[in-house]
């Protein structure tokens, strides 16, 4: 599989997980929150400064349907992370790096 197809397929999987499967995720508190509640320090948490944001708590403001609201938030988050981390990756990479990796890509093309 070519690198571009691989990355594209991976992004589609991530979007399906965040936009679709996340609806079926457990809504129980996570390990830290649960322990905080049971041992009595959960109340020391402050309200979140961004708690009124349009996607706070993985819900899209103004969308009533829970599946759609969470799905949109998941897709937006996945794309924002993809662009930021991908951009960072391209910014810090070794540019025009010849050698092993380009030979490998050339080999992929002959394979395909």
């Amino acid at each position, binding site marked *: *599989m070519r690198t571009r197809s*691989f990355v594209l397929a991976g992004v589609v999987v991530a979007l399906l997980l965040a936009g679709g499967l996340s609806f079926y995720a457990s*809504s129980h508190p996570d*390990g*830290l929150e649960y322990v905080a509640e*049971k041992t009595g320090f959960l109340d020391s948490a402050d309200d979140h400064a961004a708690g009124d944001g349009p996607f706070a708590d993985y819900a899209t403001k103004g969308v009533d349907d829970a599946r759609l609201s969470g799905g949109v938030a998941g897709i937006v988050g996945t794309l924002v992370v993809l662009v930021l981390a*991908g*951009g960072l990756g391209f910014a810090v990479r070794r540019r025009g790096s010849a050698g092993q*990796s380009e030979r490998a890509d050339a080999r992929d093309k002959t394979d395909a």
Partner: protein
Amino acid sequence: MHVPDGFLDVPTSVATGAVAVAGVGLALRGARRELDDRTAPMAGLVAAFVFATQMLNFPVGAGTSGHLLGGALAAVLVGPWTGVLCLSVVLLVQALLFADGGITALGTNITLMGIVGVGVGWLVFRLVQKLLPKRTSLVPVAAGVAALATVPVAALTFVLLFAFGGQAPVSLGAVLTAMLGWHVLIGVGEAVITGLVVSSVVAVRPDLVHGARPVLAARRLEVRTDTEVSA
């Protein structure tokens, strides 16, 4: 394991903030050695994938859930320095856009899940890899063992920070026992997911798995020796 604002006092949050800044700074330099034109898109993909899987809380016992932290997964797929950058981007977006993990606690969360999670994940992965035979089929196994270790170690690190800067007068022993117990269980889920994802990538494109490079290099060397012998 996203720490909200208020769990830890200001000095502790400032200290973890400094650790996070230093860690991300080092990672920006280190990632250059790991990323080239071909592997750079993997940084975006791995971060996006970690974000997506962190939304998938799985039930752990009655009343609790856990989700992938992704430190070991990112370290094995894109390398430890790039892994720290991936996790930091995920945690930044979660804190600012999704109110998940406090803003003053961002340094704490980057320290716990980014630096400790990725660092421990990579070190344990390399250690296990050295102990096992050099086979690509064993890369996911080493990744799974590493993933299992990262969750309780990150939980232990939180308890250590809580011992210094906890804002509620609660029994430290009770916090330690409960955090370790639950996070060993969550670690099992982390190990299964990490092992499955790494084995899927190894099956399709082993050359894109940073942690598989030593194994692939050893394999190429063997092939060359064979050719020389036959010639």
